[in-house]
């Protein structure tokens, strides 16, 4: 029943309806970038070369269209060679703004083997240091240094150190616009407008289909990341052998060690909650601090912006702090059994293990230290206080837990 589909992306013909370019990070690196670096023929010019200094994000969006299907993200190759005069950093300035790196680079794996890195950048309009942050995000993927050395002879002579090569050569990039889930969700469901806003938003997020990129090692639950931030280190060990896990675990932990300290421990968690969950105007610091002492506002925005994963997070956090209800809770919701991100790795203490299990009534918080415990608690209180309001929908199962 399947027919051959001949497409030509850059010509007249188009990608068949329903199909879109949705590569995994592994495909981007192992197929497209590796071929590009090795100068191999790529079957179709799906990914074009873009001079990052010459095109604004919205120009790239035009130039990197694939077929006529609607796109949420755009892909291109970029050759990193231009530096700022003052140093070794790549010059990513355009006529109207610049791309600024944020966070720490993420390691990309292919069947447990490290193949490359991903850098996240944000587009700012204007000139540093007074740029105005935009919604445009770029993920810049590069192959691991040694593979570039092997595959690209022309660059060997220019390479002095591993640091240097990171700013050299071909990278493959994806740009996309940061989304506001709350607005989008309401927008797409006009019939539901009369209903409870938070509920609708929550369920529609929940009913979105699951992610398909199982090897996306970095897609950790919010809970795990928060625990990592605080000091516990739960880790999904199912993908890797222990050694790999430990090293990547260490790397992830390192980035927290390098996080600058905020003024008070209370700010840490509020920043986490506020920045991740809140619909806030750009650069609006006031809206982060506003959430202090107002758990409900945190919660409401949390429901609006988070998907199922975060819901599960709240649920689990709620169950942690309500040992009496956890049995009943577990009975109704067997799916909590396979929450991989809630299982600790062997590198975590055994008491840490118990915390994340829905049935583990013992809420051992000792290893998180006193101040962090308070932070955790305030975070949880805000989530559990509102869980009772969702008794309408079959999927809003938290209401069963009787918190």
């Amino acid at each position, binding site marked *: *029943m399947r027919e051959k589909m001949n497409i030509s992306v850059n010509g007249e013909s188009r990608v068949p309806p329903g199909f879109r370019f949705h*590569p995994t990070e592994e495909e981007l690196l192992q197929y497209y970038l590796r071929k590009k670096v090795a100068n191999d023929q790529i079957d179709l010019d*799906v990914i074009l070369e873009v001079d990052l200094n010459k095109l604004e994000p919205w120009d790239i969006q035009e130039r990197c269209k694939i077929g006529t299907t609607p796109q949420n993200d755009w892909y291109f190759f970029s050759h990193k060679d231009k530096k700022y005069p003052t140093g070794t950093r790549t010059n990513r300035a355009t006529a109207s703004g610049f791309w600024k790196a944020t*966070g720490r680079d993420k390691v990309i794996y292919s069947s447990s083997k490290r193949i490359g890195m991903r850098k996240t950048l944000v587009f700012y309009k204007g000139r540093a240091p007074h740029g105005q942050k935009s919604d445009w995000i770029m993920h810049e993927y590069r192959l691991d240094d040694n593979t570039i050395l092997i595959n690209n002879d022309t660059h060997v002579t220019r390479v002095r150190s591993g640091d240097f090569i990171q700013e050299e050569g071909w990278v493959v990039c994806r740009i996309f616009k940061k989304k506001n889930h709350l607005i989008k969700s309401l927008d797409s469901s006009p019939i539901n407008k009369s209903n409870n806003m938070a509920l609708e938003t929550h369920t529609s997020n929940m009913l979105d289909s*699951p992610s398909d990129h199982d090897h996306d090692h970095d897609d950790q639950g919010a809970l795990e*990341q928060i625990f990592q931030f605080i000091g516990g280190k739960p880790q999904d060990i199912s993908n890797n052998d222990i050694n790999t896990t430990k090293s990547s675990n260490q790397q992830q932990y390192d980035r927290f060690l390098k996080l600058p300290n905020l003024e008070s421990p209370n700010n840490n968690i509020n920043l986490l909650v506020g*920045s991740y969950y809140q619909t806030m105007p*750009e650069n609006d610091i006031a809206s982060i601090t506003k959430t202090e002492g107002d758990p409900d506002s945190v919660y409401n925005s949390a429901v609006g912006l*988070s998907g*199922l994963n975060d819901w599960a997070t709240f649920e689990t956090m709620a169950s942690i702090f309500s040992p009496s209800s956890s049995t009943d809770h577990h009975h109704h919701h067997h799916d909590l059994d396979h929450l991989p991100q809630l299982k600790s790795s062997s590198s975590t203490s055994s008491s840490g293990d118990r915390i994340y299990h829905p049935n583990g009534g013992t809420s051992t918080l000792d290893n998180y230290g006193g101040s962090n415990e308070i932070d955790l608690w305030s975070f949880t209180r805000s989530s559990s206080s509102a869980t009772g309001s969702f008794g309408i929908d079959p999927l809003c199962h938290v209401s069963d837990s009787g918190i």
Partner: protein
Amino acid sequence: MADNNLPPGFRFYPTDEELVVHFLHRKDGFLPFHPDVIPDLDVYPYNPWELEGKALCEGSKWYYYSRKMQNRVTESGYWQAMEMDEPIMSSSSSSSSRKILGMKNYYVFYLGEPPAGVWTSWIMHEYRLPDSGSTSKSSSRKRGHPKLDYSKWVICKVYEQKNDDDGGDENDTELSCLDEVFLSMDDFDEISLPN
């Protein structure tokens, strides 16, 4: 399984609108398909885990044609409607010309027999064409009285809701929680991180 000669990275990721316009409308109107990738599975009510190898599978989601039916009962359980109708709007830019192309229903699979079934994490999105003649706004569908129309084709999209993913395929292009944290920290000049 969405086997094609497209380069790596191309996948069957239809929008709701594409499913309705390019697949459901054409099926309903006996128009030829291009491409013809979604199979008919209306003969036998498969359990969701039996769809592998039968329905079109892409990215842990299964697509197939079925018929609108009152009770979706399988050998091991049944699909329970969630009483949530969502219109599929045309994505036309001017809001005045936006119209309802189809409707989307949500189902959860229960093991056993109603009403005592055990809830599972299998979810179905059922796409159907708009109810002809009825105004879409008055869609207060009463429990247990769905419209019976065995002649109408629907498209079913089935997947297992997992707890360990980040909530949706649209989130693939979304920032992780941690990215958002770093991003907002960039707002504080004094603590912005080095590249």
